[in-house]
């Protein structure tokens, strides 16, 4: 089945259990939102999916199109089609965006095959235009001295260039003003379609006005406690996380 699937996932950092029995499935072609308060384990979920070495999966599994992701190195997961837009993207001093993305795309080609430079730049400039980025941006070092908005935009640029099968967007809306949010949302919406499944992780309902999800999941204390359609986000906004927490004793498993 073509989906990004999490089953009964348990994750710990050291002795502390962060994710406790989370299940979730994002089919390709859909956009799912995971909403949750601070400390609910949202970002941990994102990092575990991408294979961050600090987190230990103590139980459960994650598959991508039925392939076991947990058995793969982070770079293998990426090349097979998983993308994570980081909440706090790292700086890569001295490495320009153009060179970085080129190296990333090159890593997906068979050995000995070289990327066509003119095609690459044509595509890069096209995607940058979509995100309202100036061309001079390509010669800046990745995230070095970037504003919060520039960092998030750069994450979406990378998403657009790498064309993954599944993308996890970890609080891409945080720290963005309304104009930047609209631009980023426009970028994400233009990528939507049957070829990609998107998992949108957020604290606030606001971004969901611009990127309208097919499904909404509410995450509390390391579990999905409610799932529903896009209207669930609005209900949650109205009633607050306490309302959602009330259901935490009986975890709702989707699919």
């Amino acid at each position, binding site marked *: 089945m073509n989906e990004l699937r999490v089953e009964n996932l348990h994750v710990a950092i050291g002795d502390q259990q962060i994710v406790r029995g989370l299940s979730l499935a994002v089919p390709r072609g859909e956009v799912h939102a995971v909403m949750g308060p601070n400390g609910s384990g949202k970002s941990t979920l994102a990092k575990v999916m*991408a*294979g*961050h*070495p600090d987190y230990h999966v103590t139980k459960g599994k994650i598959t991508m199109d039925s392939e076991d992701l947990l058995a793969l*190195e*982070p*770079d293998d*997961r*990426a*090349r097979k089609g998983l*993308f*994570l837009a*980081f909440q706090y*993207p*790292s*700086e*890569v*001093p*001295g*490495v320009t965006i153009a*060179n*970085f*993305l080129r*190296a*990333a*795309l090159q*890593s*997906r080609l068979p050995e000995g095959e070289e990327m066509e430079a003119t095609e690459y730049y044509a595509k890069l400039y096209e995607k940058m235009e979509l995100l309202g980025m100036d061309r001079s941006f390509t010669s800046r*070092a990745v995230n070095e001295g970037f504003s919060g908005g520039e960092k998030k935009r750069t994450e979406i640029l*990378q998403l657009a260039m*790498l064309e993954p099968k599944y993308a996890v967007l970890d609080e891409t809306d945080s720290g963005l003003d309304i104009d930047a949010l609209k631009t980023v949302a426009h970028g994400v919406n233009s990528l939507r379609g049957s070829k990609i499944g998107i998992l949108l992780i957020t604290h606030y309902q606001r971004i969901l006005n611009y990127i309208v999800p097919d499904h909404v999941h509410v995450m509390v204390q390391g579990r999905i406690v409610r799932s529903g359609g896009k209207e669930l986000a609005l209900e949650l906004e109205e009633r607050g996380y306490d309302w959602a927490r009330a259901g935490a004793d009986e975890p709702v498993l989707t699919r």
Partner: protein
Amino acid sequence: MKTETKAVDIDRDKGDFAYPEVHVRDAGRGLSEKTIHYISDVKEDPDWVREFRLRGLKTFLEKPLPTHWASKDLEAIDFDKIRYYLSPGTGAKRSWEEVPDDIKRTFERLGIPEQERKFLAGVEAQFDSEAVYSNIKKAVGEQGVIFVGSTEGLKNHPEIFRKWFGKVIPIGDNKFSALNSAVFSGGSFIYVPPGVKVKHPLQAYFRINAESFGQFERTLIIADEGSEVTYMEGCTAPKFETVALHSAVVELVALKGAKLQYITVQNWSSNVFNLVTKRGLAHEDAEIKWIDCNIGSRLTMKYPGVVLKGRKSRGEVLSIALANNGQHQDTGAKMIHAADETTSNIISKSISIGTGRATYRGLVHVPKHLKHCKNNTECDALLINATSRTDTYPAITVRGTGNSVQHEASVSQVSAEQIFYMQQRGLTEAQAMSLSVNGFVNDLVRQFPMEYSVELKRLIELEMEGSVG
């Protein structure tokens, strides 16, 4: 000439491989007056050079090793076991088939042309560089530029050569400059007449290949008033060395308003002690720039310097050092301000991998009576593994008022988060690490000529292999 067919020693890292060698002219092992006379006889030195060598020997024998501040590893050099002179062009003949596969692969991955590979592997004493060299020589010769070997320089152009030879770096500057003064051979002599701007960089590569590499090279470059010249030595290919001690002396003289740039890229095999003295003398409004890249060797000690003798003269040292397992790069810069309104700039970047150690030593001297002098020093170290080491020893004396000095130093590590981020984009851990290292040196590498910067990037990738995981 007799030939030997002993087994090739390949049991080492890339760049380190050895063949049995046979030489026609060989001063034998150890150093004495007899050695000096042997060298002078073979080279048919003028008397003043013979005397210069003998003074060099005397000073060398008198001076102690600088182990009170430098690495104790210097004591591992057995001066009695070293051959101080082997005549050029008589390297043993060997076939390409004998060259170890890993070396061939390294050459291939560095993109070195076939012909040059054979030369670098020691298969051919010289590749087709004679023609290139004579073309260069002819082209610049029309402008009155002299570009010859140091031996030819001292014989055929004594009026210019003698005036400056040993003046920027006197015999007794240090123990190794004295050693070089005693036994030097090889190296370049360049003179650029007033107002002549040499368009293309002069490459030692071609000249030296035509003459075989020297163990105790001696280079002297004089840029006359208002002239401009760039000189490049070395190459990024791992260079096989039969001799464990290399001690070059390079003297630069930039006369009024001249611009002189000296670029070095060296990749020594890890048995080599590379102890080099490099200094330039900048007259009024002149500019001397050293671009220096050191990779490999067991111990490199090299502190290119500029004596800012004339008003408004400028000095610059840009250096990159990469110390891999078991290697020690002890490098830095010296800026001696000796006139008003002089400026100097030092940017040094080092990378330590595995048990590699990078040391920065900087000397900036501005005496009290000078006005409006400026120095900027930046030294950044990158540590790759937990076992890697870096040290910084800046010595800055700035006296008087109205002089300014700025020093910035940083030590960084490639963070685990950064590597994870890059891996998430599809790069392997090793690719991520090597891209990070390239990023670290990127702003300096950009100042290298194009062909060097491309090779340098590839070389860093090769050096990074096996440093992670």
